[in-house]
Each structure stands twice: as structure tokens, then as C-alpha cells.
């Protein structure tokens, strides 16, 4: 049985007239803790959509061989009973396994057949990613109550369909399955894949070389196998007259969820959190403007609930207390400050890379220098390392950096797509 609990980190004290409440909500799933209980044994669906466009023949066939090996590696870690399929994608989607077009039930026979089919993957044709998503949607449509996940791999841009076709395919898939997107090499478009993974509650990352693909596929599949609960939502009750200014996932990575909510009733909204394993923890930063109160008054700014398949249980309170004690109202909550900084870090990297590409060396140096400074302060070492491939760091404390003359394309792309990865505040146990 998976159960959910939540902790709120905030400074609940507002100055007289203050009306904006910031809070970081940590949601944790566990197998035994008290909290919301959910039914186990939800069926799991895994669909592997692998790029077989002509460009996969590059590198002397290393990419297409890696696609075969990676697909086989993913099939090898499927738990018996998993519903699965493999889609070969180019300018159209082809059901590689099962060829009948449905989902297979994983057992020794079906996995072997699928591995044989994967071993015969060959590359030709163009790239129409929307058609792969549509293929996955057709396969998964009849399995609404499952934990459905798609691994989508491409090595190129979405060149053989109109952007609106991809958008429509994404819209049809929302709520049906989650999708982690991986770009092989450096000829793909991060914004295209981010659009998909953001809408479908997944991640986008770079696989710099074919040799790293097998491990990436295995890890993604294992993550899906560990899932226990589907259709989890963060439900926020906020008082009449208030406005939820934003809801962002801030750990393990930054993801703006503000526009993804659905109204439950006049005062409550659901923010989809997708599926969860039995031992996960994610952080969310919420900012709510509420009707102000008098000094000494207390108002609930939000009642935080976890909804699983529509059944909600309250798990935490976000509060507002008005005070004329400046020592209380000016307190800075560590978690809120930390994640505000991590969001600024992602923005600085994004803006710095954009300036660099536009030839604005001064702007790029300033922004990437600021990024180094924040990442260093926050102890975000992996981001510091990514930045060091793009800039030479003279002093991380002041953010004094120099742009590197020669930067490998994959390093710049890795910094771009991984800039939203955050670290957590070190907490006293």
C-alpha cells in the first residue's frame, strides 16, 4: 500500500497589509507511513517509441545498433505481466511488436519475440514525432486506469509534419500516459522534446553518444516498473477571493505546473502529479495571493490535499498570520529562498546560453557567471560541472567567469536541458 504525506515549509507571518504567501510543499510517498492509502496492483504499460529515421544510420550504424541494444535492454527489465509494445518511428509510426497493433503481456515468450523484432530494426525515412505519440495513444487508449509510460527517443528534429500536428498529438495524450523524451546526439531540438515531456509529466534529457543509450533505456524502464500509483494530483483549496499565482515542481527538477490545473469546485483545483513509486519525494513551490487580514488574524492560505483517482485527503496546511512584529514577518524561509534561487539559476543558464548564441558575449558572461555563483552557493555541484564545460570559472563566489572559446555542442545542449535539475536544501534530520 502506498501512502502520501506532506510537509509545508513557509514563513506564515505576513506584515500588516501583506497578502502573498509562499510555501514549499514536500510530498512523500511511502509504503508504511500514515497518510492517504491507495489500492495496489495497478497495471503498468510501457511503450518504447524508438527513432528509426534515416539519420539513425549515421556514425557507421552505431546509432541504429544502439537503438536495437537499448530496446532489448529495456525489454529485459520488464516485469512479467507488464503490458508493452515497441513502436518504430520515422515519418510514421509502425508497430514493431506486437505487430497486431495492441499491447502484449510480458512473459518469456512475448519478451523473446519482442527482442527478436528489436534486433531487426533498420533505419530509413523521415521524422514525424507526433505520429509516434498518436501510435502510443492508440495502443494505450483502452487502458485508462493503468500506469502508462512511453520512452521516446529521437536523434533529429520533427521535420516531416507540421508543428500543429505534434501539438494535437500531445494534447490527445495528456492524462493518458507519461512520456520521458531522450535526444540522441546533438541534432534534435530541446524545445520540441521539452514541450512533449512538460505536457506529459516526464523529463527531457540528452544521450550524448550511442554507447550511453542502453543504460538510459534500462534506467527509464526500471523507474516505470517501480511505479505503484497512477493519477495522483496535488489538490489546493484556497480561500474565496484568492489567486494561485503559481505552482511549480521544484524538486527533483523545475517544472511549471500553473497552467495544468483543473477546477474541482469553486475553491479547489487539481494539479496532476502523474504516477508515483512507493518511495518518492518531490517538492512544490506555491505562491498564493489571499485577502489580507488584520494584525493578529490567522487565515488558511491553502489546504493541501493529495488526490488519488479523485479521492482526496488533506495532508498539510499553508497558513497566513498577520503581525506587526517585523522580526517575524521579515524572516526568510530557507526552503522557499533556496528554490527561488534554483529557479533563478535555471533562468540565468537559459538567458546566458541564448545571449551566447546571439553573439552577446558580455550578457552571456554576466548571466552564466551569476549561474555559477548561485549553483556554487546552493551546493548544486552537478550544475557547476556542466557550467564549467561552457565557461572558465575564475571565482565561483563572485561569479567571475570567462566564456570558453570552443564549446562542444553536446556540452552546451546538456547544460541547456539539465539546467532545470535542482538540489534540495540540506535539512537537519
Amino acid at each position, binding site marked *: 500500500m502506498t501512502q502520501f504525506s506532506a510537509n509545508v515549509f513557509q514563513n506564515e507571518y505576513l506584515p500588516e497589509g501583506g497578502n502573498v504567501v509562499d510555501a514549499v510543499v514536500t510530498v512523500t510517498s511511502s509504503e508504511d507511513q500514515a497518510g492517504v492509502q491507495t489500492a495496489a496492483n495497478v497495471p503498468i504499460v510501457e511503450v518504447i517509441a524508438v527513432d528509426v529515421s534515416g539519420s539513425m544510420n549515421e556514425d557507421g550504424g552505431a546509432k541504429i545498433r544502439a537503438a536495437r541494444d537499448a530496446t532489448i535492454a529495456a525489454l529485459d527489465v520488464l516485469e512479467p505481466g507488464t503490458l508493452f509494445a515497441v513502436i518504430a518511428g520515422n515519418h510514421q509510426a509502425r508497430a514493431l511488436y506486437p505487430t497486431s497493433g495492441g499491447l502484449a503481456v510480458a512473459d518469456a515468450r512475448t519478451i523473446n519475440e519482442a527482442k527478436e523484432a528489436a534486433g531487426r530494426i533498420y533505419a530509413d525515412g523521415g521524422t514525424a514525432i507526433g505520429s509516434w505519440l498518436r501510435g502510443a495513444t492508440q495502443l494505450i487508449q483502452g487502458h485508462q486506469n493503468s500506469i502508462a509510460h512511453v520512452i521516446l527517443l529521437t536523434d533529429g528534429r520533427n521535420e516531416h509534419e507540421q508543428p500543429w500536428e505534434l501539438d494535437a498529438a500531445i494534447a490527445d495524450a495528456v492524462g493518458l500516459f507519461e512520456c520521458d523524451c531522450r535526444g540522441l546526439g546533438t541534432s534534435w531540438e530541446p524545445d520540441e522534446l521539452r514541450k512533449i515531456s512538460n505536457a506529459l509529466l516526464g523529463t527531457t534529457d540528452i544521450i550524448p553518444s550511442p554507447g550511453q543509450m542502453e543504460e538510459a533505456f534500462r534506467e527509464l524502464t526500471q523507474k516505470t516498473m517501480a511505479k505503484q500509483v497512477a493519477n495522483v494530483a496535488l489538490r489546493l*483549496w484556497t*480561500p474565496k477571493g484568492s489567486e494561485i499565482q503559481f505552482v511549480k515542481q521544484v524538486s527533483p527538477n523545475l517544472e511549471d505546473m500553473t497552467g495544468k490545473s483543473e477546477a474541482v469546485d469553486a475553491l479547489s483545483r487539481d494539479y496532476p502529479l502523474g504516477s508515483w513509486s512507493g518511495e518518492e519525494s518531490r517538492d512544490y513551490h506555491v505562491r498564493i495571493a489571499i485577502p489580507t487580514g488584520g494584525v493578529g*488574524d*490567522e487565515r*488558511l492560505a491553502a*489546504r493541501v490535499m493529495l488526490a488519488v483517482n479523485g479521492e482526496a485527503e488533506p495532508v498539510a496546511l499553508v497558513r497566513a498570520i498577520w503581525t506587526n512584529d517585523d522580526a517575524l514577518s521579515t524572516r526568510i524561509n530557507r526552503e522557499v529562498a533556496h528554490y527561488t534561487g534554483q529557479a533563478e539559476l535555471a533562468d540565468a543558464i537559459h538567458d546566458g546560453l541564448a545571449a551566447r548564441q546571439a553573439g552577446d558575449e558580455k550578457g552571456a558572461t554576466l548571466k552564466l557567471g551569476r549561474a555559477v555563483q548561485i549553483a556554487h552557493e546552493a551546493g548544486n555541484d552537478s550544475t557547476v560541472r556542466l557550467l564549467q564545460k561552457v565557461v572558465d570559472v575564475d571565482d565561483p563566489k563572485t561569479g567571475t567567469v570567462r566564456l570558453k572559446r570552443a564549446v562542444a555542442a553536446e556540452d552546451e545542449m546538456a547544460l541547456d536541458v539539465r539546467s532545470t535539475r535542482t538540489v534540495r536544501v540540506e535539512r537537519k534530520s
Partner: protein
Amino acid sequence: MSDTPTPEAAEPSEASESIPVSEAFEAESGVAEAVVMPTVEVTESQTCPACGELGAPGASWCEACGADFAGEHAALSGPPCIDCGAAHEDIVEGYCGNCGRKQPGERDHQNEMLGAIAAASDRGLRHHQNEDAYAIGQSGDRVISIVCDGVSTTNDPQDASLAAATAARDSLQETLDGGNTDIEAALVTAVAAAQEAAASVPTGAGSDGPASTTIVASVLAPDPSDPSIVRTWHAWLGDSRAYWIHEVDGALTVTQLTTDDVFENSITRWLGADATDATPSISMVEHDAGGQLLGCSDGLWKYVPEEDQLAELLNRLRSAQPGLAGVELAQALVAFANEQGGHDNTTVVIVPTEKPE
């Protein structure tokens, strides 16, 4: 969300105000059964118990939210929201389900008499909750008075103060009921019990330190052989005080019986998980019978820090209202603190003694 009303929100005085409303609805539905078409004789505008909107006179349902006054919203089980007027049943765990406003807690405004012992404790005007707590008790002719003031900058100080006050009182009650006459030792044991209780308050999720509280524990006992003498014993940590009030030449004078553990506006000693030294200061003072013991938190004495200032206040209150005593006096002191701005929680315990004939 649960519709279960919480005990916190049930204020007896306001609950009684709501009774006529539900009676009106009952009468209304009774009429409806008898003559099919209700002939409702309500002339005043009414507030919708569900959403708080003011409805037309005689309306049987709310035009704003559609609530049927004769249906599920008819029976009010408690007072509506103090802010928006939403029905009592919309109040969830002490917060209004419409506007989010926290409803008055049962500790916000407390008054109590136990025999001749009077106590009043109040949230004040500037704090969102009452973090003071008191506990009183009697064992034969001996009286127990405990005042605790939770430290605002710690997590859940209101739990620490209540736990400490209750534990100290219970410990003293048990010792004194058992016939023990070593009151100093009884106080040391009681403060140790209070420390254990305060230190057991869960740490909570906030980033502040563990819940902490002050304490002033007093025992008053008449001399067994000389009715003209009473003695008071005091054990304390922090800045909650005990005073002796007595009449000299027709005017009230005040003697402070405790010394504050304070350095540069911060208390130096307290009870709680992070208390470095929870050994209380102890004093015993002999008094002429006829005076009054006053225990209080700094919510009161910060406005009258000197003995003569407190005495002046007491004389002023007495001349404005001759005979003011007991819970009325305790309430008057709380009201004074709130008139001065009510910047803190205020708690007062008063124990009068009889002058021998």
C-alpha cells in the same frame, strides 16, 4: 472535506445566539407541512447559513448559493464564521471553508473560578493564538497556581505551556493530597514534571527551535496554628511573575515575589527540549492574611513593570468599581492589558486570603 464541527469553534455564547435562527427554520418547515404553501412571517433580512450572503426577507432558499434553508442548511450546530459568516458546518478543523479565517480557539478567551481562585487568560489583540496557559488547584486549605507563557519564537509554544502548566499542577495536587508538607520539595518535583511534559511536545515541521515555555508555580498555605499568617512558595523559570497584593492604610500595595530570568529583553531560562538548566529559582515568603496572591504573564506586567505602577492600577480599578474581586478583577486586568494595545497574551491568576476576625 469533513463537515464535522470542531470543538474549537464552538463558543457557548455565540452558539446560543444561533438558536433562534434554527428555531425559525423548524417553525417554517412545520408550517409547510400543515398548509402545503408556506406562509412565512419573517420580516427581517436573513444571512444564508451556507454562504453568508444576505438574503431577501422570508426567502426559503439562498439566491446567492442555492442553499435550501429548510434542508441540510437548516440545522446550525454552532456559530457561523467570524469573518464571512459562512455556516458553522463549513468550518473545518477550526478554519472557515469559505474565507479560510481561523475561528476563535477555546484558549483565546478563558475565565475560570475554582473556589475562591480566579483565573483569566486571553489571546490579546496582536497574537494569533493564546500561547499562555494556567492551571489551578486546591488541596485542603492549600492552593496551587501555575502560569506558563509559551515562547513565541519556538515551534508550537502553546502546546509546551499547556503541557507544563497541567503537569506541574497535577504533580503538586498529588503531592499535597498525599499529605506532604515539604512544599519546596513538592515544587521542585512539579517543575521537573513540567519540564518533562514541555520537552515531550513534538518538534513539528517548522524551522524554529523546540517548544519552550516559562513557568511560575505557586503554592499558598495558611499557617496551621496562626490564622493571621499565610505563606507562599514560588518556583519559576523565565519572566512570568508572582506578586502579593495587600492593603496598607486603605490603599493597595504590591510586592513582587519572583525575579525575572531576563537578559537584554530575552529570557535566559525556560522549560523545553532545549532547556540547558531547568532547575527553578525558589522563594518562600510569609504574609499577613488578607492579601491576595497574583500570578501573571508578562502580557500584564509589561504595561506596569514596577510594583507601584501595578499598585496604582489596582487602586484605580478598585475606586472605579468598589469591591472588584475574583474573576471580575482578573478580567479587568486582562481588559487593561488589551486597552494598552494587547501586544501579548495575558494571563492572570488571583488567590484571595481571608483576614482573621
